[in-house]
């Protein structure tokens, strides 16, 4: 991407953040298999470029909404890794004080609403948050993450239409990872691209290589600028792939080994690592050092989470209402 004015430090930062997303998920996966985390998890290995490319284009006071697969969004947005890990461990120090869990991680102070685990449920909320930004004359935008599956639910239509007619400062970010759980997108959508639907709302739409972090970043920079200038929403479709199953119990038999292998051959982190290495922005030593820092950060987060206090059982009774 030549059009984005990314300097070397920014590029390394995006690379580092993608690796952090990946390693966070991989560590969580093993913690899960070891039985150290309760609940369920929906993992996002393979989708790091969408999360990091979008969030790298945001300002501190912008907001994101997320989905049932929110870990990389949270890490990319800069939600505290300690708070995230503690939440997955169901500890009182978690980012939602253990009342959210994997599917609801978030921290509004860090620019991420608690993730919304009803498919498509977050799209109107994102538009509403953008309405508040617009009404209060704040120069901020909302990035609304959702999947290809959510593009078929009614709230997608209702919220995109409203955001369009009122020029709300929101960017709709569809991570098209080709499957809604086990259902292939071709089976449930007649058109070729989710972004084709933008025309129906009179807003720009674009389909972007979701495994190219700089392409994602560039598309978001343009969409964000448009939203900030009062020109309204954009529908971005980021084509990507999740390497893992839908959830912890899914071995992914509905996908061919060839397909999975082809996408793994386009691993967004490996691609970016090769790209930055070719440009001599990264070298083996730097890559190793980044990996070591991240393992250390995750070791500490896991250690702190394990040591942290559990909530008291009766804490379930609080935070229902503002008193």
């Amino acid at each position, binding site marked *: 991407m030549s059009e984005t004015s990314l300097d070397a430090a920014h590029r390394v930062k995006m690379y580092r953040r993608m690796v952090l997303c990946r390693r966070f998920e991989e560590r969580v996966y093993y913690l899960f298999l070891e039985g150290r985390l309760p609940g369920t998890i929906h993992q996002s290995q393979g989708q790091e470029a969408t999360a990091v490319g979008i969030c790298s284009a945001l300002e501190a006071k912008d*907001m994101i909404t997320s989905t049932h697969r929110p870990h990389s969004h949270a890490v990319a947005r800069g939600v505290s890794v300690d708070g995230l890990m503690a939440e997955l461990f169901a500890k009182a120090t*978690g*980012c*939602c*004080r*253990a*009342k*959210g869990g994997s599917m*609801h991680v*978030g*921290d*509004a*102070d860090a620019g991420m*609403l*608690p993730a*919304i685990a*009803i498919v498509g*449920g*977050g*799209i*109107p*909320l*994102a*538009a*509403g*948050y*953008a*309405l*508040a*930004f617009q*009404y*209060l004359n704040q120069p901020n935008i909302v990035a609304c993450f959702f999947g290809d599956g959510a593009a078929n639910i*009614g*709230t997608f239509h*209702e*919220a995109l*239409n*409203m955001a369009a*007619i*009122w020029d709300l400062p929101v960017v709709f970010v569809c991570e098209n990872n080709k499957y809604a759980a086990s259902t292939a997108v071709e089976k449930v959508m007649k058109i070729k691209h989710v972004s084709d639907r933008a025309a129906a709302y009179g807003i720009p739409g674009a389909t972007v290589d979701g495994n190219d972090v700089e392409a994602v970043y560039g598309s978001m920079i343009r969409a964000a600028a448009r939203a900030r200038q009062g020109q309204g929403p954009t529908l971005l479709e980021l084509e990507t792939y999740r390497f893992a199953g839908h959830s912890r119990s899914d071995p992914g038999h509905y996908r061919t080994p060839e397909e999975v292998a082809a996408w793994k051959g386009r691993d967004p982190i490996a691609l970016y690592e090769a790209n930055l290495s070719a440009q001599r922005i990264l070298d083996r030593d730097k890559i190793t050092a980044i990996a070591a820092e991240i393992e250390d950060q995750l070791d500490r987060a896991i250690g702190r989470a394990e040591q942290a206090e559990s909530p008291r059982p009766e804490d379930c009774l*609080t*935070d*229902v*209402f*503002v008193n």
Partner: protein
Amino acid sequence: MSLSTEAGAVRPRVGEVTMVEALREALREEMRRDHRVILLGEDIGIEGGFGGAFTVTLGLSEEFGHRRVIDTPISEAAIAGLAAGAALGGLRPVADVQYGDFLFLAMDQLANHAAKLRYMSGGKLAVPMVFRAPVGATTRGSQHGQSLEAFFMHVPGLKVACPSNPYDGKGLLKTAIRDDNPVLFFEHKLLYGSKGARKEKSGFQVTAMVPEDEYLIPFGQAKVLRSGQDVTVVANLLMVHKSMEAVGILEKQGIDAEVIDVRTLVPFDWETVFYSVRKTGRLMIVEEDNLTGGWGAEVVARVAESCMGYLDAPIRRVAAPDTPVPFAPVMENFYIPSVERIVAVARDLLA
């Protein structure tokens, strides 16, 4: 026609006002007081339109402009979701649907998001929004006449108000708008007493002295409308008026009933009900909702848990049967709890 005369009638500023006027006044006062209060809904601010389905918002877009009185597409899920999102973002939206029945279209946004985001955030977020919804059977059949309070009473995180008269309507709506939680605000169509084209023919002529001065009615405080010794009658919305009418008949028959208007279902003023039941030893609940799983069922359960020893008779409910709302007036009259049924059940309790 007579309606236009009525609409044009000069009404003194201080005096008896209708529910519609009281609610409009609440919205106007709160919008003047706090610029974060906005309205969202279908047909609420269109020039030459009706000010919402029942005229409540008539004139508000002229005063506050379309930036604050926002006409939406017919998109109930997004109305609710945008209201919740805007509330998270620092506004205090008051959204409405034309008929409460349409709340089912918005149910996910209300029950899964507005109600739970504070909890799921570990208490960090608040969703200060109001969702207004007209309820009650008015010969419009099954999809424009339901009573929906119980659905929302069952969702932790939502407050539920249901005023029976203009004074309470204004005071409770102002409180709802200032509340930092999502509030479902139910208005009975036959209690609007609206002036204008959408006046309900069979509407009760309910007006009230509504002070010009600022006042708020706290949630969770039921009102004892009539003090009595023999039986406690707990009701809401239109059923308050039917109960009062019934109690007048009972009085002539020597039965001294106490009538409690619950005013809000969440929070619920259990103490006032318990106190009354401990005094009278008899309880009946009058609600327009279907019998099974109505809010009255919860009252029965709580009273059974807390006041069993004080009861001299079984608790009785007067409610709609477990059918959809019928259309034919003759069937609808049978369906909606009537003054006669209330009288009969009360007499039965005292027999």
